[in-house]
């Protein structure tokens, strides 16, 4: 009888413990996500970063992506070529592609231990008819 009672009394405490830990786990996860947001790489296209001094230059980092046109978008672009106006599909496509190339550049900078990329430049070149290469490059540095 006693053992049974003990068992019964233990059961809710285990559940309680889980419920007590749940918010703590949530808090840890939340703090973790904050930590990842905090550790970012500063990107500028000027030579200096105000208020900070460059400790070490780590050389050039680069990121590129080649994108081709979407058939549906191409047809819409064909229509727009008659009426004129903005090609929103292409604008978005190119913007996404540039973000991708910047992300790749940032990844490379992080991999070699930089915490900033300065003097960033963008360049575009059309490889073949229908595909464009978007290229971003800059100097990876360590700031104090």
């Amino acid at each position: 009888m006693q053992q049974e009672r003990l068992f019964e009394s233990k059961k809710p405490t285990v559940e309680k413990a889980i419920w007590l830990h749940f918010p703590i786990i949530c808090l840890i996860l939340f703090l973790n996500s904050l930590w990842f947001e905090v550790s970012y790489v500063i990107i500028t296209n000027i030579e200096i970063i105000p208020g900070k001094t460059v400790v070490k230059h780590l050389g050039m980092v680069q990121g590129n992506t080649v994108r081709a046109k979407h058939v549906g978008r191409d047809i819409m672009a064909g229509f727009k070529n008659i009426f004129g106006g903005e090609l929103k599909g292409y604008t978005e496509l190119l913007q996404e592609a540039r973000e991708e190339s910047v992300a790749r550049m940032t990844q490379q900078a992080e991999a070699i231990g930089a915490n900033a990329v300065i003097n960033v430049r963008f360049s575009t070149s059309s490889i073949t008819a229908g595909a464009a290469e978007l290229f971003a490059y800059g100097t990876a540095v360590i700031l104090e």
Partner: protein
Amino acid sequence: MANLIIFLVLLVLGYIFGQMAERRHFKSIIDREQQYKHILCFNEHTLPVHTPIPEVALVAGNVVISIDYFKRIAAGLNNIFGGRVRAYESLIERARREAILRMKQEAEQLGGQAIFNVKLETASIYKGRGQQIGSVEVYAYGTTLINKV
């Protein structure tokens, strides 16, 4: 005969809708330029000596604008006689101003007051028959200064 009719219809449609689109676009550009007048753009890469140390962020804006059918034909005719190609002038001006405005918009969202080292890049995206430029992309980017409060 059918080809000629299609050609003329496209010409008229291009003229009407193209003019409408251009006028509307210029109007909105002028309005928004007034709205973002307080964000200054510079193409120098040296910063002035600030008393508060600002934060920096890369901002960018891009736009792809297409030319209408009528203007493309007009530009084609212009290619024979030479001289100013007004059709493309207005297209590229619109694209540049729009790209700069989008960059300013992004800067305002981040709370920036000025943009330094503004670079503009132009690329022709779509080339039709005979390598005539169909649409142009302008990409504007720069570094915005955000004053920490």
